């Protein structure tokens, strides 16, 4: 068996990238040898970026527009050369960014795919089945043999995604890619990325969509103004990235005595009792959500309640949320609770008064006990035998 030589797929140390802000005639300066020392204003797009991507893992990089995400991906993909630092790569890289970059819109989908695959070293007999697979995955139908410039942008994105992931690369560099096409197509994209991961691929996912990061990455970094402001587990990275302001809790609040953990029995009628204090006369509503958070594997809201009225006047209340035959499998969940002022007529946004949620870094835990069962949830049902004629 072939042993991997390195435990990491990709590593960079003290990476930095500066761009000279030359006004004009940069080409002439270079040709005349005047560019030896960069003078004048310089933008430091990235600095002190150190990152190790372990084999078989995708590391997430969260950042807002202009934080340096795309620059980093271009450095890793060797589109740019770093100003400082160095990059080590162990494996073949497939970029899922700047898609279509090598495409000529006059090519047909099939020609584009063929060109890409040849470029990646797929040739001869192994080519046709991969092409078939791409045609099928991209759901382009007859359009696969028409020119890319007749495609809508969604169709082109589907083609590019299908082509870039058709072939198992060792390292993927992904830029926001899982937002291609409609919902169902996105599900397919997710499944495919998971498959690639299971087969040992590694990668870097650069995005401002934090849900993608919690679902795909165990580790994540937050990038701000060209440097990593946080490196750690993805759920903490999300808290750090969102920096959601916790409401002041001046009007109503969950008191200190709110339990940090609730324990319920799977399949049993359940009640979650939340203490609520209303400090000034206000109409206050409360809602809960139960989320399954398995960092690097999945994040999902399982149950979401509506807002329920708690009270209008100052005082101590207990908000009792009842769930009949608790449909959750045994395990650990995160419980999020929200207090808001009841919206006045015409108000579209609820004003938050207090909350406990993992995205704010102060979430509660819900432990569900019971005998384990294979499915993620417990759906109530009844069954009976029926003769075939009935149908």
């Amino acid at each position: 068996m072939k042993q991997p030589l390195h435990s990491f797929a990709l590593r960079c140390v003290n990476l930095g990238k500066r761009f000279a802000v030359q006004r004009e005639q940069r080409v002439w300066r270079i040709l005349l040898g005047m560019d030896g020392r960069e003078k004048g204003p310089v933008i430091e797009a990235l600095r002190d970026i150190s990152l190790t991507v372990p084999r078989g893992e995708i590391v997430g990089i969260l950042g807002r527009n202009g934080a340096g995400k795309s620059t980093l991906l271009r450095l890793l993909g060797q589109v740019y050369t770093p100003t400082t630092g160095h990059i080590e790569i162990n494996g073949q890289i497939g970029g899922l960014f700047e898609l279509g970059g090598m495409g000529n819109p006059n090519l047909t989908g099939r020609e584009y795919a063929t060109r890409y695959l040849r470029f990646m070293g797929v040739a001869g007999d192994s080519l046709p089945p991969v092409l078939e697979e791409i045609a099928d995955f991209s759901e382009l139908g007859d359009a696969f043999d028409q020119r890319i410039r007749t495609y809508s942008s969604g169709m082109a994105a589907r083609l590019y995604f299908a082509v870039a992931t058709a072939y198992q690369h060792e390292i993927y560099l992904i830029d926001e890619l899982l937002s291609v096409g409609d919902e169902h197509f996105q599900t397919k994209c997710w499944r495919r990325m998971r498959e690639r991961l299971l087969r040992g691929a590694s990668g870097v996912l650069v995005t401002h969509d934090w849900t993608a990061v919690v679902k795909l990455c165990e580790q994540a970094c937050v990038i701000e103004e060209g440097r990593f402001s946080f490196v750690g587990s993805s759920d903490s990275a999300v808290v750090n990235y969102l920096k959601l302001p916790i409401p002041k809790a001046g009007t109503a609040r969950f008191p200190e005595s709110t339990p940090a953990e609730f324990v319920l029995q799977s399949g049993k009628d359940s009640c979650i009792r939340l203490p609520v204090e209303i400090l000034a006369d206000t109409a206050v509503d409360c809602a809960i959500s139960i989320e399954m958070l398995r960092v690097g594997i999945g994040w999902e809201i399982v149950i979401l309640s509506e807002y329920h009225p708690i009270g209008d006047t100052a005082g101590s209340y207990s908000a009792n949320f009842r769930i009949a035959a608790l449909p959750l499998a045994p395990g650990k969940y995160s419980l999020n609770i929200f207090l808001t002022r009841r919206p006045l007529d015409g108000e579209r946004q609820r004003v938050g008064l207090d909350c406990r949620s993992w995205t704010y870094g102060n979430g509660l835990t819900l432990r569900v006990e019971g005998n384990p069962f294979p499915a993620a949830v417990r759906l109530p049902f009844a069954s009976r035998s029926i003769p075939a004629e009935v149908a």
Partner: protein
Amino acid sequence: MSLYVELHQVSKVFPVGGSATGELVAAMAVDGDQEPGGGGKVAVDRVTLSITEGERIGIVGRNGAGKSTLLHMIAGISEPTTGSIRIGGKVTSIMTLGVGLRDDLSGRENIYVDGEIQGKSRTDVDRVIDQVIEFADLGQFIDYPVRTYSTGMKARLAFAMIAHVDPEILIIDEALSVGDASFSVKATARILEICARGKIVILVSHGMQSVREICNRCLYMKDGQIVMDGRPQDVTTAYIEEVRGEDEAALLQRFRAHVGNRSRRAGSQIRRICLLSGSDDIGSQRVEAHARLRIRVFGSHCSASGTAVCRVRIVRLDELLVFQQDFRLADYSFHDGEVGIEIDFDPLALGAAIYRLDAMFLECAADDSEPCSEHSTVFEVFTLTPPAGGRPMLYYPVTAAAQT
């Protein structure tokens, strides 16, 4: 002067196939009698439309329905193949944000250049430039050349510029989805403000919510034609219904890899799975959330032992197992060896998604035993009233009561 946009029998045909030379020759032969549908891809098909001042039009439709092509023609980016477009007023378009920016100029200089192109004097621009810069929120980058910007930053600058030139006829193609969440909130608010000034706005969006919030008239495009024109609430609802209602055959076709039936052992076969949605006995691959769903499995299985079971599984298409139950065949068999099982979910608590339903006959319930026969199909749970605040895995009732 009042603003208007009028389209009369407008079509756009893109040539398909043929060689580049052939196209060049065709383009040079100025004959002007190309007919729509004559061997090309008809992106927009004889659209007649009249928009008057104060209308805020939303255009909805599937990918490839011709929405963007139509916008491009109204914006003057491309010419119609046939038909005529008359426009009263100045058109400002936000298509691919940032295309019109000059790379070597700084953000600030771009704002002046763009102002001049829009026919504003330097003093006019001076009046709004601080607002534009504040809105774009680029920090020090505003004085750096645009080529140093990321895509998102370019989009922000371009949007800020357009939003402050007081457009007469504003065309927006999906631009609201650009940028991070906080910017898109700002952008939406800005668009609402522009709309309030009574100018014409044409918006293409996949987000039904933004169409409902912003527009007062909505068009539904399909295969290059406008198939519906009316109030946003009605049209978007009809659109969602129709998209959802698109052939169940198409659903099965699309996920055909998940649909199948096979028997590995003689005498064991699952003949049929049917899904009955709602209270009536109509078979359906599409199930409304919160409604009742009955699953019926019919087949036959000859077994020497009494341990045989039918295992029914529901797997969401991203491989999340949401239901698994074994039914002892002995309890659901008839004297002729036929098996019929009805599983009744009343109501079905699953959230909106596509699911695969597997039924299999096993010799015994042990987890590792090989199924003697199996049958799979695909169904979709949909909802017309998605809850605010997220898409839960389950639509499960939570009640609450408060006590002091």
